[in-house]
């Protein structure tokens, strides 16, 4: 069984989780942090969150949009077409990794 299906850069675990959180719709950074904590059970610091999201923006997986409210700047993030592909590839890869080395019967 081949684990890496294509030649495209694959997301790390945190990047994949953030992509999955952002997949349904555009969200501001604070809501992303809250949803991430709800879905994974692990908190994420704002510095880690924003640097990871910046790295993902540079990779072309998400798009960032700046806005203003009464507390100052708000940054909204949205998954791009490339990000959707990264989610699909990540899902395939993580599924393949999870069943790597198991007999077909145990892998289900």
């Amino acid at each position, binding site marked *: 069984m081949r684990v890496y299906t294509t030649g495209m850069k694959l997301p790390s675990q945190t990047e994949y989780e953030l992509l999955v959180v952002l997949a349904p719709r555009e969200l501001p950074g604070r809501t992303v942090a809250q949803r991430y904590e709800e879905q994974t059970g692990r908190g994420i*610091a704002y510095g*880690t969150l924003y640097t990871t999201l910046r790295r993902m923006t540079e990779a072309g997986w998400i798009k960032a949009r700046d806005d203003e409210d009464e507390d100052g700047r708000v940054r909204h993030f949205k998954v791009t077409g490339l990000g959707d592909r990264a989610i699909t590839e990540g899902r395939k890869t993580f599924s393949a990794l999870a069943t790597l080395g198991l007999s077909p019967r145990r892998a289900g």
Partner: protein
Amino acid sequence: MSRRKPAKVPPDFLTNEDLIIDFVASQELDEAGRIVTVSKPALMTYVYHLAKRRVELQMFLAESQVSPVKRYYREAIRFLFMVQSTRDQAGAAPRPLTGDRLVSLLSGGRYFFGGEDRKIVDAALGDIKKDAREMRRKCCGVAHIRSALLTRAFGLYVPLVWANAKRIVSELLPLRKVISWFMGHK
């Protein structure tokens, strides 16, 4: 019909006449006893003291006219209001402005960053302000809010500094490139 006693003026109370005598004594007089020069500040000070003493006298007289029964009820009502306001403060009322000064203090760290990093810090500080407001709405304690804000600020600045340090190190790590740069080769 009860006859009310006239109000007693306290002995240390200066009357208008006393003030006028003091004022004239402090000024320069000519041979006929007239004031030669009156500076504007001195005159203003005199008018201010006069007005203040008059208000104090009026308040003292007004207070003395109130009957003891009425004064007792008034004090009782004031005490009840005081107790109620103390209960409001100790109860579930939201705490205003807790942590706002701390957030503004922590926002000073944004000046150590530039470009995209500063934009990230601004966005994250807005999020921290929202967190503080939410914690105030949930009536969290002051110490809890402060420690949470400090933790969040730490979690904001440290990864940014770490990412920048990593980038600098990754730029410098190819020593051959650095040596070539020092030697002037391309």
